[in-house]
């Protein structure tokens, strides 16, 4: 890779010199042709550079995760797919921080590089990609939408293949999604590689402490490892029952509105153009 980069750079330099010469010689046609060639070369160079950074990113993360396991592919997976894996596991829109934690716990590797910044970039790229070639990719990482204004919800990532209802966030949705995520994590907690059992149960414990009745009365002292996934699932389902109907109704009506009012891009990435003036007056 590095060698071809060098060759490219040399070629770009040579082309620039050629362009200069042909401009001085006032050879218009030749200049145009050379310029086009130069642009192509530069684009290839940009692409190669982007691939290079991706590679070094994943090399870094795999190095730091050596301790747990050198799972084939584990951390060589691009960020985009890491996010996708974690979100599919959670099955609800989630904040970058949780996405990173879930990925680290269930798929190994350190996903700490998954900062909010990176996600903003990622989402912008996804949007651009969707705008130029809609539905060309099997999935897009997109935004959750607020129920009231159908604007992108702050700090939540979602997957484009989910039904619109699931990507809409009403007032009750953060709690419902939290409970759903807790149940999903508990379901999957039994089937993780040995190396990450501790991380997973720590994550699950953090969820369980905030759900009534989820930190079982089994041992009295709630240690980090004493959370029983079955109890968590039961407790989460019990509380979810309370909010589910109202939440579902809010989401469904907002989703209807979104389907009527928004185009395809906006349905995935939100409609930031609407303000509330006049609506609340």
């Amino acid at each position, binding site marked *: 890779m590095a060698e071809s980069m060098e060759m490219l750079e040399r070629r770009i330099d040579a082309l620039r010199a050629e362009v200069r010469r042909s401009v001085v010689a006032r050879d218009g046609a030749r200049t145009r042709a050379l310029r086009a060639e130069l642009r192509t070369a530069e684009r290839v160079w940009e692409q190669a550079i982007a691939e290079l950074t991706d590679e070094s990113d994943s090399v870094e993360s795999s190095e730091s995760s050596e301790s747990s396991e050198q799972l084939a592919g584990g951390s060589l997976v691009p960020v985009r797919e890491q996010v996708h894996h974690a979100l599919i596991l959670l099955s609800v829109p989630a904040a970058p*921080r949780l996405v990173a934690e879930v990925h680290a716990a269930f798929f190994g590797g350190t996903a700490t590089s998954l900062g909010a910044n990176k996600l903003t970039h990622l989402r912008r790229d996804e949007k651009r990609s969707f705008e130029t070639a809609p539905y060309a990719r099997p999935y897009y990482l997109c935004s959750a939408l607020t129920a009231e204004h159908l604007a992108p919800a702050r700090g939540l990532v979602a997957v484009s293949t989910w039904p619109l209802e699931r990507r809409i966030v009403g007032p009750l949705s*953060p*709690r419902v999604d939290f409970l759903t995520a807790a149940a999903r994590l508990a379901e999957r907690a039994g089937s993780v590689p040995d190396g990450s059992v501790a991380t997973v149960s720590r994550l699950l414990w953090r969820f369980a402490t*905030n759900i009534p009745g989820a930190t079982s009365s089994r041992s009295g002292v709630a240690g980090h490892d004493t959370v029983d996934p079955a109890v968590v699932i039961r407790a989460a389902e019990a509380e979810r029952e309370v909010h589910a109907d109202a939440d579902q109704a809010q989401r469904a009506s907002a989703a209807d509105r979104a389907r009527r009012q928004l185009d395809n891009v906006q349905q995935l990435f939100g409609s930031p153009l609407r*303000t*509330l*003036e006049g609506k*609340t007056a």
Partner: protein
Amino acid sequence: MTSTSIIGTSDGTAQRLAEIRGGVRPTRHNARTIAALTRNPGCARRAVLDGAGVDKQRLAAYIDFPSRFGQSQFALARGNAFEAQVKANGCADLLSLLRERLGLPIPEVAYDDLESVTGRDKESPEVRYARSRALLTRAASGDSGAGTLFDHPLLGLEVAGQRVYLEPDLIAFQHEGRFHVVEIKSFAVVDGQADPSKVSAAAIQAAVYVLAMREMLAESGYDPTIVSHDVVLVCPRDFSNQPTAVLVDVRKQLSVLRRQLGRMTKVDQMLAALPANLSFDLAPDAAGVPTRAPDAIVDALHAVDARYAPDCLAVCELAYFCRNEAKGCTAALGTSAREELGGIERVETALALAHDELAPAEDQAEAAALLRSAARLRAELMAGVGL
């Protein structure tokens, strides 16, 4: 209008304040600055500068009296991280605290994020204020399912005749028809005890929000007392990052705040008494470098009366300048010294009175007697230790 944070004043006043400020955007008030404002309500200099939204920090640095305080980056980062933790996953931590401590029932979980309304990065405070107001008044009207947690509501408050927007990083929470202000702070509560000065600072800040929320509801015709005077203070417990919640009664802070905000001289009246060409404009050039001579700014500052007290050092960016100016004044010795020496303005006068070198005026007789006996006591003590 250049100002987005000041509304509700007459055009003339707004115009005048803009001239005083110069052609820059006004600095924003927050609960911290309002709480500080009430610490020294008699200071006209501060009232004018704050009213006009002058960047005092920059001003102080320019006239070579840089302020030496502010929150450390570490404290800010820690505070933000703790707040994010408490609010993560739809306020999961906070919900369980409220359920435990205040008996919030299970169905009450609705969460409305008011920090970003339309999803745009930069939306005007008016949009956010309108939305906060709409949601909070709907909740106040007793509409069922009108919401429980309101994250980052934008509030407005009348300060010295000026309307300012407050951007609290707190949550207002509604339960059984009553609102509570939730203040998240990152100082630790160890064994149920916390640093009293930090608690009281947090209580004053929370009281500012209570007041602002009450005014918002009162304006819309609701009973302001449905905003509870008990605020929920959320802090890390013991040496962990586990949040804990306590109720703090801010009735006292509220009444202090209300009285002092009411007493603050109205900006209009204050402006009338000032020279017409007064301006703290640094007149920055295209690159943002100030072009006005520091001496001119100092002259402008002298034109507005200050009321320096040692407390100012902790709350006002201009305090070092005012302290320098107040050198030799009895007021600079602190409020208690100032009260004891009522009517005596200068330290030299006080010393002269103490040493019987000056005949006291009629209203100084009491203070003079006090000073003389103090001088006698001091002399005796010094003689006693052989100095």
